[in-house]
Structures are given as C-alpha cells and as structure tokens.
C-alpha cells in the first residue's frame, strides 16, 4: 500500500463512518453492546499507541529511552492540567535535552 493509498483509504473510511450515523436507522447503532464497545475503543487504542510509541524500537523489541522520560513529563504536565500543546512540547523538549546530554 503506498502512502497515498493509506491516506486516501483512511480518509474515505473515516468519512463513511461519520456519514453512517446520518443515514442508518437509529436502532441499528443504538445497541447497548455497540455503544459500550464504541466508547471503550478509543481508550484501548490510544493507550496501546502510547505504550508502543514509547517503549518499542523498530522491529518491536522493548526499550526504555529518552521517550520514556518524555512520557513521564507529559503525564506530570497532564496531572497539573497543562494544555495539549504544552504537554507535547514539554515531552519533546525533555527527550531532546536528554539526548543532547548523551542519554537515550
């Protein structure tokens, strides 16, 4: 799959899912289990993405490097109710500084 195919397929499916809500009969998506799974999917996926992007190297092996320190700072910032962009910048800055110092 080329990058453009990925971009356009993801975009097309994203729109189809949004549009589905406007065209399907209400009871189809109204099921209790569907609601529960749909509410929990972003939680599971985002949590897995955090872990994979922080603790794995290409090839899938596990590691702890400057990204883990960045994540720790991000979590601290979130606990202190920092806004999104501040959280992201602090994490990046942490990793960048640690690497300049020769770690991770």
């Amino acid at each position, binding site marked *: 799959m080329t990058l453009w195919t990925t971009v356009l397929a993801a975009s097309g499916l994203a729109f189809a899912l949004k549009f589905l809500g406007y065209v399907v009969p209400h009871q189809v998506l109204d099921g209790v289990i569907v609601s529960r799974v749909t509410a929990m999917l972003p939680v599971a996926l985002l949590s897995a993405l955090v872990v994979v992007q922080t603790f*794995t190297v290409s090839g899938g092996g596990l590691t702890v490097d400057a990204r883990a320190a960045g994540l720790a700072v991000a979590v601290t910032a979130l606990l202190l109710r920092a806004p999104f962009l501040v959280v992201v910048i602090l994490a990046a800055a942490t990793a960048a500084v640690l690497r300049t110092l020769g770690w991770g």
Partner: protein
Amino acid sequence: MRAPRLPDQRRNEVLRQCLSVGVATGAYGISFGALSVAAGLSLWQTIALSALLFSGASQFAVVGIVAAGGAGAAAVATSSLLGMRNGLYGLQMSRLLAVRGLRRVPAAQLTIDESTAVAIGQPEPAAQRLGFWGTGLAVYVLWNLTTVLGALIGNALGDPKRFGLDAAAPAAFCALLWPRLKSGDARAVAGAAAVIAVVVSPHAPAGIPVLVAALAAIVAGLLPARGWRKQVLEDPGTPPDGQAQP
C-alpha cells in the same frame, strides 16, 4: 425544520464557545503537521489527512503507525476503529440537526468530538445547531491552517529525533487519552490494552499490537456492565478529544 431564533446574547455566548474550542483544538494541529512530515508523509499528504480525514486521534494514529514502519493496512484499520465513535456522534447529531439530503455531507465531515461536545452542551435546539456548525467550522478552518504551519515547521527542523519529535507522538496520544480515563472501567481497559500491546509487540509486525489491544475494548463491552453502563447509555458520545472541553 426551523428552530426559533436565538436572542443576541445567547448567540454571542455560543459563538464565543465555538471559537475558543476552535482555537484550543487548532493549536495542536501544529503538532500534527510537524509529526506527520517527521513520519515521512509529504506536505500534500499531511494536508490531505487534515482536510479529508479530519479527526485528530485517527490522524495521529495514521502518522504514528507509518512512522513506526507499520503496514498501510494496519494504519487504516486503527484509524477506522478510532473513527467508529464519530458514527455514534453522527447518530446523535442527526437527531439534533435534522439535516437532510446533501447537507448531511458537510454535517458528517464536521462530526468530531469537539463539535458534538459543544452541541450537546447547549440546552436549546437552536443553540445546539449553532454550536455544532460553529465549532465544526472553526475547528476545521483552524486545524487545517495550523496543520500547514506545523508541516512547514517540521520540514524546517530536519532530523525529528534531535528535537524529540518521536517523544511528542506518545505525549500527544496520552493527552488525547487523558480526558477519557474518568471512570474506573476506562482505566482498567487502558491498563489491559497497554499490557496486551507490550506483550504482543515483540512478536508482531508494527501496527498489529495496537489492533490486538482493541480486543480489550471489545471484551469490556461484552462483559456485564458496571458503573459506566448508565453513563455510556445516556451519553454515548462521552468525552471530547484533548483539552478542548467547553
């Protein structure tokens, strides 16, 4: 169906809310743009994601999986699983907006966490509609502008690791996850998904561990409901992305 006109004061209140959510959300379009070019997507591919896909978490997932060397199919699948909640929002919005015909196309495209959250946060139908369209348009315009800005900045920065951009991606996912962790069950699902991802990761191609971790959500949905059942049933479109809560 035409809703009664809003008094000027209420109208201004709602519009202010739309704009502030638009600005807050637009601000992190910068990080998306920068991460996307760092992941190896071109400027135009980055612009296409913001203009066409237009759903923050899914966009971050696509570039995150591409950056990790994952297969395109895994990126598309993760993006789509994340996008399923927009379908549920659409279901709610189609009731509030009463749109028909071609107007459902822009309505669907603007159906995201933020526009849904602002709309259902209003008590009266006219304000709900204004909140949806106002927030959707404000976020759409600002998100796309800041994406371009971020992509240009990212291109100028060069090596992403030097500036810690590879640490920015998990921080962004963490910030998107944060407001969804209010219930104990959500925290349990997040914990289970994290463990599954760690265990699967050394044994599967990039992108697959995240999809396997989605099983945690499916199992949680099938288990007998506990505390959050009521909450989810009464308000299926629970919390919005990021910090943009009105």
